[in-house]
């Protein structure tokens, strides 16, 4: 039998089989997880989410072991367990891994795993993108962490301040940090795009945005923050690596650069980062509290507003990491005010949780123990946070162990404890069996007592004059006992985590499968049978309340019987429903792709690009980059905009929706739009650099320097605006059925784009601007470089559309490729306009 016949055979209902049995058999076939070595080609959220979560947790353990070595070194004064250099690698990698390899990824990983369940969807809209992100994360994470085994780990601190990290630390360590973590940040942004589109477009019919689970609200807020916070760091990383690799002096004061530019770019990322890590844990608490209290959360809309408010305010606080850089008192006052104000939405969220428990009848269990412990720890961290938000107090506390204590109270109390509670809570949903309440309690108390022993004394150490990031301290300052207690506490905490880990990995074969919905929760993810079948939702439910399991009559019975949408996979294909953003009306039945190796291969080549680039093997790196691009194009060609065998599909309950969508109705368009918003944020970071230099120099561009002139930039603008217009013309032609005209216009674009890039580069090139001479030419060149790379991607998009049109796959009815390309070019127009106005126009008026 051919593959198609086999599928048809699967699709047929067999004799003696009930309708439901046949449906489940077909669903199981469509969503079956590959076995054997092919298992690793899976892309479904249940597999990728699980791998992702496990890896993030392994990096957490790794970073924790680094911390234990540091605590052992600091147990006694003048210790020589590790050298200064090793210690500096340890703390750099500890912070970097906790932030980049655990904090952010654990949220994304866990969301990939459970968000579709919470939304009653079968998968996220771009499973292969999730898989690609996971493989990038794994490769990048192993690369960065592995460096310490070669004594080559980064040692500039997780904040990598220049000039120390640019000019005073040789070796590959800091390059590994820059390129390895940039690679991971790109994966993080990809996951953020996926999650935003998932929360906005894959909600079940009827789940209007005000019925969305709070977890999904937090996903939106946090993924949105990732979208605006990570790109400035990537922009900063680009400037940083250009300085390290090619001597472009962005941060070198002798050549017009400024080390503070990095601090701004880093903390514009770095402060929201704290909330990016913290809010998801609050989201877990908001998900678990109603189950503890056995009633809906009090103040749903307040919590939503508070989460959104926290997200916004968090972008206005970054300067509180720079209080001691000698800023004027006015700035200090402004940022102090902004910094303390973030405590208000946090207080609202916390009180909504307490209120829910007051109104409901709390059921004591292990997850709730973790959450209670989290409150006790986090509230103290929040209170010390208000202290360090006040500039006068911060002048003393900044960069001391007081801040080490503060941030660990916030992040362990606010993040790690809720996550451990959530692992205990959600374990049956993933693993099918429950964790042990007894081991859970032992783990909690060891961790709770150990944590406080470890970190509470650090408040005092800091106030007694112990700076951060010291590999040793001298006896006689009153630090010996404090540090010894901290070390004992750290190992106690580690013991608690070891008990927790044992509970997670211990064999549970003899243990009965957990009861269905063991916590009697009201939210959708618990509707599934346990152990969970691979298809996720048995049927995509019609939702009319926030807690359907509590509030919708007969819900679970209807769910089990498949009486909602898409109870079947008639064509044995993976399908989920796309709904409208606000009121969740079904508008498309989306076929999502199944297992593939392409994503892993693409991630491997992309990793090769970054890793080989780190070691200055540029020819090999560029080869890998080209292969990664080719693999991604092959993936797009074979896996996206697939021609459906029919136009529409009956998804049940009398609703028929199209199988193909383009433009704003499609998830692809939304993903492109959201990605480009993030791209604009990175671009804004670079443009910020230009204008920042203008503010720190008495005259900028510096007197006597030759700029790119206005002529060539203007010519470039004209050509590239034309390319943009022709792109729109091509879209109009193709959508109007004049495909040959469309092909001709796309071919014209292939000429216009490169000519435009050449014209843009001609300005600084012909005036002989040397990017290594001064920060000014370097900034002009980096703007041109950024724009040029984006136009190169635009060129690939044009070429792709042209090839699709020539292959007959881009037609009036199947127009998603050209529509996404046009959308991309709208953003290119903005990029080119700002670049030209800045490099060509600004010198005329400044």
């Amino acid at each position, binding site marked *: 039998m051919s593959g198609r016949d086999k599928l048809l055979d699967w699709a047929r209902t067999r004799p003696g089989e009930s309708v439901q049995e046949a449906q489940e058999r077909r669903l199981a076939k469509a969503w079956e997880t590959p076995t054997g070595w092919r298992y690793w080609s899976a892309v479904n959220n249940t597999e990728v989410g699980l791998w992702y979560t496990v890896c993030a947790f392994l990096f957490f353990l790794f970073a924790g072991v680094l911390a234990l070595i540091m605590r052992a070194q600091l147990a006694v004064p003048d210790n020589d367990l590790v050298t200064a250099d090793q210690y500096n690698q340890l703390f750099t990698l500890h912070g970097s891994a906790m932030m980049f390899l655990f904090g952010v990824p654990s949220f994304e990983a866990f969301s990939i795993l459970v968000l579709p369940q919470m939304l009653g969807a079968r998968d996220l809209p771009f499973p292969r993108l999730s898989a690609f992100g996971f493989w990038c994360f794994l490769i990048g994470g192993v690369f960065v962490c592995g460096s310490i085994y070669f004594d080559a780990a980064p040692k500039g601190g997780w904040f990598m301040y220049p000039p120390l990290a640019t000019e005073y630390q040789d070796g590959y360590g800091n390059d590994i940090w820059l390129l390895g973590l940039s690679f991971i940040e790109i994966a993080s942004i990809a996951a953020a795009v996926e999650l935003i589109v998932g929360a906005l477009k894959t909600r079940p019919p009827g789940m209007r945005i005000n019925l969305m689970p709070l977890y999904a609200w937090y996903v939106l807020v946090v993924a949105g923050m990732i979208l605006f916070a990570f790109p400035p760091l990537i922009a900063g990383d680009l400037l940083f690596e250009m300085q390290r690799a090619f001597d472009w002096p962005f941060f070198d*004061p002798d050549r017009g650069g400024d080390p503070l530019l990095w601090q701004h770019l880093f903390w514009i990322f770095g402060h929201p980062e704290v909330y990016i890590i913290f809010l998801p844990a609050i989201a877990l608490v908001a998900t678990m509290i109603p189950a503890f209290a056995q009633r809906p959360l009090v103040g749903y809309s307040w919590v939503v507003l508070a989460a959104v408010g926290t997200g916004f305010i968090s972008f206005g606080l970054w300067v509180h990491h720079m209080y001691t850089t000698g800023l004027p008192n006015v700035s200090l006052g402004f940022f102090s005010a902004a910094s303390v104000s973030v405590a208000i939405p946090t207080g609202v969220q916390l*009180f909504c949780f307490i209120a829910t428990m007051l109104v409901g009848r709390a059921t004591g269990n292990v997850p709730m123990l973790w959450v209670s412990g989290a409150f006790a720890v986090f509230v103290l961290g929040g209170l010390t946070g208000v202290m360090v938000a006040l500039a006068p107090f911060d002048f003393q506390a900044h960069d001391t162990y007081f801040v080490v204590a503060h941030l660990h109270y916030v992040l362990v109390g606010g993040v790690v404890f809720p996550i451990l509670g959530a692992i205990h809570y959600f374990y049956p949903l993933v693993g099918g069996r429950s964790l042990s309440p007894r081991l859970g309690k032992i783990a909690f108390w060891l961790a709770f007592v150990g944590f406080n022993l470890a970190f509470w004394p650090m408040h005092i150490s800091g106030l007694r004059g112990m700076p951060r990031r010291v590999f040793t301290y001298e006896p006689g300052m009153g630090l010996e006992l404090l540090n010894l207690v901290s070390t004992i506490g750290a190992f106690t905490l580690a013991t608690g985590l070891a008990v927790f880990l044992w509970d997670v990995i211990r064999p549970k074969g003899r243990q009965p499968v957990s009861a269905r919905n063991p916590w009697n929760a009201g939210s959708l993810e618990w509707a599934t049978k346990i152990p969970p079948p691979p298809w996720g939702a048995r049927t995509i439910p019609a939702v009319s309340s926030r807690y359907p399991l509590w509030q919708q009559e007969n819900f679970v019975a209807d769910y089990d019987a498949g009486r909602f949408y898409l109870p079947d996979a008639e064509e044995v294909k993976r399908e989920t429903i796309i709904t409208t953003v606000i009121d969740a009306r079904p508008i498309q039945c989306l076929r999502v792709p199944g297992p593939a190796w392409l994503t892993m291969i693409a991630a491997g080549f992309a990793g090769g690009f970054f890793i080989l680039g780190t070691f200055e093997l540029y020819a090999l790196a560029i080869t890998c980059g080209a292969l990664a691009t080719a693999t991604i194009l092959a993936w797009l060609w074979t896996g996206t905009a697939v021609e459906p065998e029919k136009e529409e599909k009956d998804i049940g309950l009398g609703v028929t929706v199209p199988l193909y969508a383009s433009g704003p109705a499609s998830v692809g368009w939304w993903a492109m739009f959201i990605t480009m918003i993030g791209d604009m944020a990175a671009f804004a970071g670079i443009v910020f650099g230009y204008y920042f230099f203008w503010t720190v120099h008495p005259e900028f561009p510096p007197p006597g320097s030759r700029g790119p002139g206005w002529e060539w930039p203007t010519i470039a603008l004209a050509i590239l605006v034309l390319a943009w217009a022709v792109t729109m013309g091509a879209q109009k032609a193709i959508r109007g059925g004049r495909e040959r005209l469309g092909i001709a216009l796309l071919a014209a674009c292939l000429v216009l784009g490169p000519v435009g890039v050449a014209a843009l580069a001609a300005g600084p090139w012909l005036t002989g601007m040397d990017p290594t001479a001064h920060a000014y030419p370097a900034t002009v060149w980096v703007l041109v470089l950024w724009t040029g790379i984006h136009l190169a991607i635009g060129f690939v998009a044009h070429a792709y559309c042209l090839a699709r049109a020539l292959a007959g796959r881009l037609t009036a009815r199947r127009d998603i490729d050209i529509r996404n390309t046009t959308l991309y070019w709208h953003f290119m127009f903005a990029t080119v306009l700002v670049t030209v106005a800045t490099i060509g126009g600004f010198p005329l008026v400044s």
Partner: protein
Amino acid sequence: MAAPPDDTLAALLGESSVLAPAGRSAAAIAELSWWLFGGATLIWLVVIGLSIYAAYFGPRAHDEAKVRLLVVGGGAVIPTLVLAGVLAWGLWLMPQVKPPLPQGAVEIEVEGLQWWWRARYRAETGETAVPVANELALPVGRPAVLRLTSPDVIHSFWVPALAGKMDMIPGRETVIVLEPTRTGVFRGACAEYCGASHALMSFAVLVMEPAAWEAWLARQAAPAEPPASAAAQRGMAVFTEYGCGACHAIRGTEADGDVGPDLTHVGSRRTLAAGALPNTPDDYVRWISDVHEVKPDANMPPFGMLPEGDLAALALYLDGLT
């Protein structure tokens, strides 16, 4: 070589607690701190008490309307008032904590370097500036304006007992005002991670009565006295022979290097190598012969190849430069 008693170095570098202030700025911050600690303890007890009550001891089903009032009051209104209060206090303190530049202050230029401190006392009567290293002295009761710079990486100047910290950033000049209120020895340290030996970059601030301070400054301004003993004279010859003067200055001799610390009165300092060692002849020997054991990656090359006798003589000479 006898190991120094454990507490020597800490005692030499002086007090370093934020909560035992010896300066006007630090005192204002310490007072604020105590109120913050007290207030935070109170808020923590109330909030955590409430959450434990709600989670474990609450009688069933409180009235939701009343509970909503609690959310508004406890979550929004009270925090807003409290935060507005502490913010206002913090802002009100700013002129004391970071005062405008005072008149009649002692003026000092301080440079942070990997991993030591260079300072120049600006002359008040037109004489040349007085260079010192790794140890400052200030008169009690008189403000001092410190202009902070760095020629290499970012450092941060911090004397907890006197004031908060201020970063030293290449390409910029930052300013900190210290106003000591009692005499004593106070430990300072670099607070910004600055590379391998960030942990070994401390200094002492000696706060003295004005007359004693004048004498100290005059002493620091004077050139080095010629070595008296034969051994010390040999040490001076070793210093010249091995080219130490290429990096170090000893005013009154031909050594006028500007790369490392000025050693004119190195023997008078309480510690060696920016707080890495106490200051005894043995410590000079250890430092000079084994620089990187004491201070990883320090810029000074080790001179372990010096004959033992030369080394001892050199140590004696330097120790005598009081």
